[in-house]
């Protein structure tokens, strides 16, 4: 019997953002946790995340944004996925997601409103993200398209 297919996760830093270090650390941790990671690196347009996810039949896309412009870059991200036939794909976003004084609750609400399943506040540990993934994938196996809380 062939072993079960490892889940595939697309990672990258969106927009005109060159802050790659955190994304690399996340990628390494995900690989160590047994995921197949398609790492797109820095300066990645939203459409490239979606194209990569289609071709590799990815289960999740993890978007990093560190330079404060994420809100502009991520607008319509879920719609792009739906357009490409990836309706049920798990979407996370994390980093320094907004500029200025906005509470995390408000920021999180903004991104969840855009269709992301989870938003990771600055300082979120990779262990937390891996735990979320485990929970959300398990929840999807129960009933699709419902991220855990």
């Amino acid at each position, binding site marked *: 019997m062939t072993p079960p297919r490892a889940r595939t996760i697309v990672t990258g830093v969106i927009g005109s953002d*060159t802050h790659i270090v955190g994304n690399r650390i996340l990628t390494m941790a995900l690989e160590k946790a047994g995921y197949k990671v398609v790492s797109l690196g820095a300066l990645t347009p939203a459409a490239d995340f979606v*194209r*990569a996810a289609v*071709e590799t*039949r990815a289960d999740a896309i993890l978007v990093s944004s560190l*330079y404060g412009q994420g809100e502009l870059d991520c607008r319509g991200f879920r719609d792009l996925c739906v357009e490409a036939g990836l309706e049920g794909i798990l979407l996370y976003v994390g980093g320094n997601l907004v500029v200025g004084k906005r509470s995390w609750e408000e920021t999180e609400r903004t991104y969840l409103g855009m269709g992301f399943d989870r938003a990771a506040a600055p300082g979120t540990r990779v262990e937390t993200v891996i735990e979320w993934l485990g929970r959300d994938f398990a929840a999807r196996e129960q009933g699709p398209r419902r991220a855990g809380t």
Partner: protein
Amino acid sequence: MSAALLIDFGSTYTKLRAVDLGKRRIIGSGQGPSTVTTDITIGMKLALADLERHCGGLPRFQHRLASSSAAGGLRMVTIGLVRELTAEAARQAALGAGAKLVGTFAYRLNAADLARILELRPDIVLLAGGTDGGNAEVVLHNAAALAASALECPIVYAGNRDAADQARARLGARLVACTGNVMPEFNVLDIEPARSAIRQVFIDRIVHAKGIDRAAAEFDSVLMPTPAAVLEGARLLADGLPGTRGLGDLLVVDPGGATTDVHSIAAGGPAPGVIPQGLPEPRVKRTVEGDLGMRHNAATLAAAAGLEALARDAGLEPGRMSELLLQFGTDVERLPASAEEVALDRALARAAVRIAVRRHCGTTETVYTTTGPVTVQHGKDLSRVEAVIGTGGALVGSTEPRAVLGMALFDPAEPLSLRPRAPRLLLDREYLLYACGLLQAAEPQAALELALGHLAVLDQETDHERARHA
């Protein structure tokens, strides 16, 4: 004397080159019409008679190797999943195999796509889609759609390996080769396995299907489509052989009657500090510009160049130029006779070389980030190639080949285009690139020395040209 005969079954002519393998020189050339539509042996016999006349008798040939672009060339349709990813990788593989790409398709084939593919009458279909372990659904949908269609041509599979067995089951006998994925991992291009599979199908089936093997008594084998022979010749010239240095990274440009082909042999990676974006490019890359032809596509070439700019370069009044263009487009065999025609031909060739090389080479772009400007590169950086080689009738027949080939160079007016900056300019005056590409399969050392010895150096540029490219 040890001799080899190199044959090009072209769409217009059957061309022969006889070479002395020991002395590394050309014994003679011969030419006959292309008679593939009736009986290919007629043109071949006429070409041999012509060669015999030029050489005063024919030597015994140790090798008789042929390439072919006759009967429409190797017509191919490629199919992938995402247009910028596996569909693009499949396209690159077909072009690298020397195919005439007649259609490219992406995502799920629908009824209209299938009807279009039938209309295109491909000789081979290359089916790709999905990385290994990635999307299997679309490539299997497309396999089933092709299987249910009236299409009879051989199909080569180079998609997601997890779906290969099911694709084979769906396609049955039509699937003649199942080869490595053109994109096994996301953004990893691996087109060599597909290229060799296509080449093998060409040798095993297409040569027969096109009636080229009727002349089998006159040759040992038809090895590849002619564009692939040119690419192989270029690769040999660039890389050299153990003990014989090649020319290093290079670019070949061939402005033809119907298309302008550009080949590059160079990694073309980004300079330090520059960030590459998009699909990695193949080191051995061929592009074909279907709208840049000196005769069949003179009208679209003129449109791409801009009518006014072209008229200025030719020194012709625009109205008069349009008349001549019309004649060129209909009388496709026409060789320039009058001074006006020579001037227009020169301007057309210059435009074809400039635009085709610009499209082949990559570009840079400055992206402004919060940490400052960053340079991003799309495509190949060919600014440091060591040689640019011109081939084909338009360049070889030109009275000013340097003025034409020089258009391949970096232009200060387009600073973001990564074209060659300071290469040697060489002319394939004896039309030997395809011949050496063929010969290298049997006698690589002789092929390399023959090619190196017969390229004409075009470095004696005129002063105003030197100023332009400085």
